[in-house]
């Protein structure tokens, strides 16, 4: 067994596993300075006009001064800002960064066979609105670092499986313990219309999902009224039943929470506009990529939109013979023009990572919408203040202003310029320097591509893994690692000379952990060290000839 104390070693290990573009805390805990001053930088507050050679002072997590003639406190750590630009930290307006993998309650089509089939709305399929993202934070999610390194200081993170997956929380992407990430909870009630059931579980169709959500709102409103009547005078009345779903949603309606409804195409957007009015929700639409067709309708209804940054494109391995509809081709072509259309129509909108899994792709995706007509100012606002406004957090986040939370991104140029690099990120006033990858750069002495059998002895006994590696010509390593614990995607992997290094994230003792592999290779053998949750142990690996792998696979 690994006890809590041993597990704390993971923090050190994560630091060691410094990945490409990873960030590292400047100072250890306890000794961190609490005040910083960025002097003489270009400051883009978003809420006001850009200032050259201005100073931003941050103290105890708050922005305490912004301007040209600002006193720098004596205890402040001064950062020379010449050549740097300071932006508000970016907000990923819908994501699941920082959350544990879904454990229960979710549908998403993977209902376990032993669960009884859902036979109607009363079974509350794929419905867990009481789950609160703030209670499910996974500090070991490697995306916390990578998102932060891309300039994102805040995510609106929500559990992701199900029709009513749970409540979203606003998380600042740094903290010493899970709860310290939380900025605001709950921030929104996301709803998906993905019917999980097929022919086995209700609902199994889109119309089933809509009917189900409709019934849930009817039930929620009914129980609010019924409970009020019963509380006033219970005598002679049938007791209203307790229902966890209704209870959580009634609370959300009382708070007037934002309810996120899915709408990507104009058909879907128009549909949810109608449903939002029918259900009388404080609705925000997410998806929004066909906004170029429906922006005026969204504006008329004063509904805000979260735009998915995963622009539609042909699937990589799509059948080249298959004919794509003209409507789809047009959609792929015009989707990035949606933000400009929304802006023009006066619709409030923000961006979210959606299907984007590599955070360094996020700003280039925003750039695409700038190339398609959105002004850079509007794009920046969507990434910051607009997102904060949509979630009612504009007093706390979204601009470089005195009194707001000190979430800042410091770059060496215009943030939408391809060459610009994020240099420093402040989260809650804590400074994170973004490091360039520190990987050796010798040309690889061989190709690691292929299936490798790795054997090693852990504190829990002998183990075996299969690493399916893909090495590109510059030595970058990607692929998967499979063992009895599950499958992990390889990240921050590289080969330099005869050395290699890669990291996976895989469940250990019930929670996802980074496991770091490094060593040397020679032809079809490799040896090295595995580091995980404070332990390290040796491993060896062999790569059977391709034909042998094929034969093995056929057994």
């Amino acid at each position, binding site marked *: 067994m690994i006890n809590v104390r041993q597990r704390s070693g993971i923090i050190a290990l994560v630091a060691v596993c410094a990945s490409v573009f990873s960030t590292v805390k400047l100072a250890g805990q306890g000794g961190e300075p609490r005040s910083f001053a960025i002097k003489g930088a270009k400051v883009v507050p978003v809420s006001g006009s850009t200032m050259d050679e201005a100073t931003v002072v941050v103290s105890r997590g708050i922005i305490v001064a912004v301007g040209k003639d600002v006193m720098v406190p004596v205890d402040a750590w001064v950062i020379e800002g010449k050549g740097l630009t300071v932006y508000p930290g970016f907000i990923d307006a819908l994501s699941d960064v920082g959350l544990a993998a879904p454990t229960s309650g979710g549908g998403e089509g993977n209902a376990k066979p032993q669960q009884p089939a859902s036979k109607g709305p009363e079974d509350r399929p794929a419905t867990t609105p009481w789950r609160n993202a703030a209670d499910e934070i996974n500090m070991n999610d490697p995306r916390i670092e990578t998102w932060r390194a891309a300039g994102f200081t805040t995510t609106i993170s929500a559990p992701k499986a199900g029709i009513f997956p749970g409540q979203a929380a606003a998380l600042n992407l740094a903290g010493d313990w899970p709860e310290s990430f939380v900025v605001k909870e709950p921030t929104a009630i996301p709803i998906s219309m993905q019917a999980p059931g097929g022919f086995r579980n209700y609902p199994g169709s889109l119309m089933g999902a*809509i009917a189900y959500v409709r019934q849930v709102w009817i039930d929620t409103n009914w129980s609010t009224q019924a409970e009020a009547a019963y509380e006033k005078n219970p005598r002679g009345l049938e007791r209203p039943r307790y229902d966890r779903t209704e209870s959580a949603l009634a609370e959300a309606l009382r708070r007037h929470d934002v309810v996120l409804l899915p709408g990507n195409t104009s058909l879907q957007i128009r549909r949810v506009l109608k449903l939002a009015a029918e259900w009388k929700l404080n609705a925000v639409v997410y998806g929004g990529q066909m906004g170029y067709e429906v922006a005026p309708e969204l504006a008329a209804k004063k509904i805000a939109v979260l735009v998915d940054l995963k622009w539609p494109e042909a699937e990589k391995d799509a059948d080249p013979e298959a004919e794509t509809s003209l409507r789809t081709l047009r959609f792929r072509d015009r989707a990035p023009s949606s933000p400009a259309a929304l802006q023009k129509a006066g619709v409030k909108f923000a961006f979210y990572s959606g299907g984007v899994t590599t955070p360094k792709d996020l700003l280039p995706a925003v750039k695409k919408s700038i190339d398609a007509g959105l002004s850079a100012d509007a794009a920046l606002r969507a990434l910051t203040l607009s997102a904060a406004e949509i979630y009612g957090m504009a007093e706390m986040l979204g601009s470089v202003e005195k009194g707001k939370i000190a979430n800042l991104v410091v770059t060496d140029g215009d943030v939408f310029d391809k060459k610009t690099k994020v240099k420093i990120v402040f989260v809650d006033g804590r400074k994170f320097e973004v490091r360039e990858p520190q990987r050796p750069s010798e040309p690889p002495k061989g190709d690691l591509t292929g299936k490798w059998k790795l054997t090693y002895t852990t504190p829990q006994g002998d183990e075996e893994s299969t690493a399916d590696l893909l090495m590109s010509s510059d030595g970058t390593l990607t692929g998967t690692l499979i063992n009895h614990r599950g499958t992990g995607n390889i990240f921050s992997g590289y080969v330099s000379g005869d050395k290699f290094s890669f990291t996976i994230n895989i469940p250990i003792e019930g929670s996802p952990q980074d496991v770091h592999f490094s060593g040397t290779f020679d032809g079809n053998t490799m040896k090295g060290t595995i580091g995980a949750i404070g332990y390290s142990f040796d491993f060896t690996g062999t790569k059977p000839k391709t034909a042998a792998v094929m034969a093995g696979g056929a057994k």
Partner: protein
Amino acid sequence: VIRVRSVALTAAMLFAWMTSAVSLAAENAAPVLLIHNATILTVSSGTIERGDILIKDGKIAAFGTEVKAPADAQVIDATGQFVMPGIIDCHSHIAIDGGVNEGSISVSSMVNIADVIDSDDIDIYRDLAGGVTTANILHGSANAIGGQTEVIKLRWGQPAEKLPFEGALPGIKFALGENPKRSNFRSDPPRYPATRMGVEETIRAAFTEARDYKKSWDDYNNRIAAGEKNVIAPRRDLKLDPLVEVMEGKRYVHAHCYREDEILMLLRVAKEFGFKVRTLQHVLEGYKVADEIAAAGTGASTFSDWWAYKVEAYDAIPYNAALMTKRGVIVSINSDDAAEATHLNQEAAKSIRYGGLTHDEALRMVTLNPAIQLGIDKRVGSIEVGKDADLAIYNHDPMSAYAVVQKTLIDGHVYFDREMDILGRPALAQERKDLSAKAKKEFEKKEEAAPKGGETPGSEKRLEEKPKPPQGDELIGGAR
């Protein structure tokens, strides 16, 4: 020179047509139109040779051989062509987004096709090209009591909310026999019912529940009316609301069925609960019990000659439509299929050959009869003054195998024009080519620029609503 001019002219025409098509969405008043010098198949009052139809405000204002048109009327020269009322398809599954069946349960009356009308479905346009102007969009047949249904006009290019046929009574799909008892589709765990007895019991149980539900609302309303204060309203149940509407005559039942025994069963159950079955769909053994169907005042919507695709369809005969018609049943011929819907005129014509129906009787089966079955015959189904200008113009008699639709009008707007369609094809092909080339170029640029490999683990699927390919199960929506 002449050639160049004619190209310029057609381009101008095309542009004019495309802009007028776009302006449809803006609800522009329909133009005053005169369809000139056509053979008019009125369906309700015979055939008029070399006649005109005047259309104002989307309605038929006048027709005959002595129509006076205002000077500014746009003229469609239909010399040598045939005009008939737009075809009405009483059984269609086009334009449905996200699944035709809610197949998880035996009573899925809470789901509503009206929620998922897909105005972007290309089958709407293809149906228009087959002269169809109105379609009854039905839930699939996986359940004894299926989802709520909706009658739409095929107003291609308009958003989904503009498609419903104004004022048409909503319906609900029932299904009997093999599909609801899942004979051909095993599932784990098996879903009740597994027999025809079970199908009957499922319907009876649902209506018993609905009757109790209605009583609870009646009691509640009575107590409120009597001035009682401490009463909690019953909980609204979306599954039972439409069944109460059926019992109150506010919603039509369209029942998928095949065999005579199950047809009689449903008519008995309906009588027991005091409602009428508006139409029997498919009803391939209807000819065996035509008198009983006629006596119940129930319509029959069937195929012309489609059978033997499963055991319960073995006793079908191509004389079914004609035999039922001759026994006094209102009969329509439906498509149940997007491709079949493009030649319903020919499907209707088959009953002239099989069963000896007259030309007009055959035409009625895809026009006035389905209009009556859907309760919209005051608006559509025949060429009469005051009715909606929903018309199909053919180059030959639509009962001929050579007939091809030239234009299709709804509410006096041209929604399909064969000539314009053909003229527009090169431009669309070019647009497709350009977009594909552009996408390919961008993709290659991205591949070049992209640093190889990623530094984050792939994260899983998100809360996004992206179009999903239809699940295999949905395909049985079209199951007959």
